């Protein structure tokens, strides 16, 4: 049953299984295990980024397609919800319309880019995605009448998903029974289902053909598979899932702006998460996203504590000054790539 749910793709390492179970339990009970707004923000962000990174890995790791437009698809989904909620008013119908429309637009755009550029060499596809993503980012910031420009859009989501809505009196384990909790579980369940869906896709006959194409596209053609078609479909699925992740992000934040959904920094983050977790494995997305988001959110605090602890020692407190957290984040990435060249998952599987 459980193996079936994972589409037969077992973690194949005891340590990896433990880590994945810990992450799943941590996210499933995050509001109760780690009370507080900040930890809930972090947990929701992890859920969303797991889906975003897994969808990117479908392209990069499983199909060998390098794209720089993944944040664009993410942004399209986010703006879909924002625009629908702004124009249709608050309501679940607006959220659904925005999500579906965002996913369709993203898939359509991926189809157009794919048909134009996937038949040529990989580097051209990468360049074209970079160009289109930059163009869309500029468009979004310029079309301020529609998108709010650099300021972005604030909108209202259904009351049932906001802190103002109380569905039960009092609190359970110190957690208030309000709409924010419902919102979190909406994000968690949607992300979980999307992740299982991606796992099913990569372990299907379709996913197997993608991996064959990644390894040797001429050979896959000689067997009878239309490489461009398969690559294009993979790109469309990946784009649509990234857009849905964007929609979830928009539902959670109740705000979209170019910086939060379209910036190139997010693209770099996604790339790092895929590489740290391990390319070509969906579980890598889980590990990569979790580690990265936690480091992004808590490294500064951790360094603050460390700096205080070593305050008596010369030089060290300066090095561990919380202001230098980005430096240490960089060091951590260099070390992780050095020690886990095939990603954390690759390493755990290799040593199991």
């Amino acid at each position, binding site marked *: 049953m459980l193996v079936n749910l994972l589409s037969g793709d077992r973690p194949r390492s005891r340590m990896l299984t433990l880590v994945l179970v810990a992450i799943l339990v941590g996210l499933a009970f995050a509001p109760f295990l780690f009370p507080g707004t900040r930890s809930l923000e972090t947990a929701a962000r992890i859920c969303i980024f797991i889906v975003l990174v897994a969808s990117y890995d479908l392209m990069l790791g499983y199909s060998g397609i390098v794209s720089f437009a993944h944040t664009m698809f993410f942004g399209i989904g986010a703006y879909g919800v924002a625009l629908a909620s702004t124009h249709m008013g608050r309501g679940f119908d607006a959220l659904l319309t925005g999500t579906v429309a965002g996913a369709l637009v993203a898939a359509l755009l991926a189809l157009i880019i794919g048909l134009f550029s996937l038949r040529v060499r990989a580097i051209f596809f990468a360049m074209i995605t970079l160009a289109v993503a930059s163009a869309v980012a500029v468009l979004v910031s310029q079309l301020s009448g529609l998108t709010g420009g650099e300021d972005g859009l604030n909108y209202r989501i259904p009351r049932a998903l906001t802190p103002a809505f109380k569905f039960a009196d009092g609190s359970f384990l110190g957690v208030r029974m309000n709409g924010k909790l419902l919102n979190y579980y909406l994000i968690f369940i949607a992300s979980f289902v999307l992740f299982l869906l991606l796992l099913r896709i990569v372990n299907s006959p379709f996913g*197997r053909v993608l991996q064959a194409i990644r390894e*040797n596209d001429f050979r*896959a*053609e000689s067997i*009878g598979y239309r490489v461009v078609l398969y690559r294009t479909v993979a790109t469309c699925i990946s784009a649509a899932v990234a857009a849905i992740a964007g929609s979830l992000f928009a539902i959670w934040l109740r705000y979209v702006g170019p910086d939060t959904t379209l910036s190139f920094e997010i693209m770099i983050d996604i790339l790092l998460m895929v590489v740290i977790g391990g390319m070509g494995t969906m579980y890598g997305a889980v590990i990569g996203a979790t580690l990265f988001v936690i480091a992004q959110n808590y490294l500064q605090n951790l360094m603050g504590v460390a700096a205080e602890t070593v305050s008596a020692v010369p030089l060290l407190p300066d090095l561990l000054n919380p202001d230098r957290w980005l430096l240490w984040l960089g060091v951590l990435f260099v070390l992780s790539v050095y020690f886990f060249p095939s990603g954390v998952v690759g390493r755990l599987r290799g040593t199991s």
Partner: protein
Amino acid sequence: MSEPILKLSGVHTNIAQYHILQGVDLEVPSGGVTMLLGRNGVGKTTTLRTIMGLWRAHQGTIDFDGADITATPTPAIARRGVGFVPEDMGIFSDLSVEENMILAAADGPIDKQRLDWLFTVFPPLRTFWKNPAGNLSGGQKQMLSIARAMAQERRLYLIDEPTKGLAPAIIGTLAGALRDLKAQGATILLVEQNFAVAKALGDSCAVMDDGRIVWTGAMVELAEDAALQERLMGLSMEAA
């Protein structure tokens, strides 16, 4: 001789600035093994890849089973029933032996009887069925590569130097498998440098030189004429 299933007429192929095939005329009769022989670099592999559509003929025509496939996309050629075993084997290393075989049977699941036959002629495939194909030895990879082409019944098999660089025992296994395939009435166009294998398997033969077919005839005719071999391919009978 039966009707040709494959017919190349005046095929020219360029790779970058190099004019490799310079007017290849070749007929492959239906049923039996046609050998494509010649020295290194005369265009044998290019001929197979051009038939498969992996490199395009810029002049001439290729007819397969009565249809012009000169401009047909490679996947469509494969689905017409052409099985191709490339020189570099082209197995999918990250996938298991089983997954490689499932992928090769693009038209549907592999027939149970056929799989049993493949396991009989290539026993290592059964042993390593669930293992990554990348972990196989060179000979086993070649077995997998040929077994992939055989995963479904094809109307034509294009096989490029299957015995290259392999140990004699493995060459024996591969030759046995090809003999089995031939006995089932398959049509095979085989590029082979090992003259002993060519002699044992071939029915008809075409010899290439400088991007053209310079001699065609029965394999037995070439096998028995040392002077002809020497002239066509620089081969000495002692080596064979």
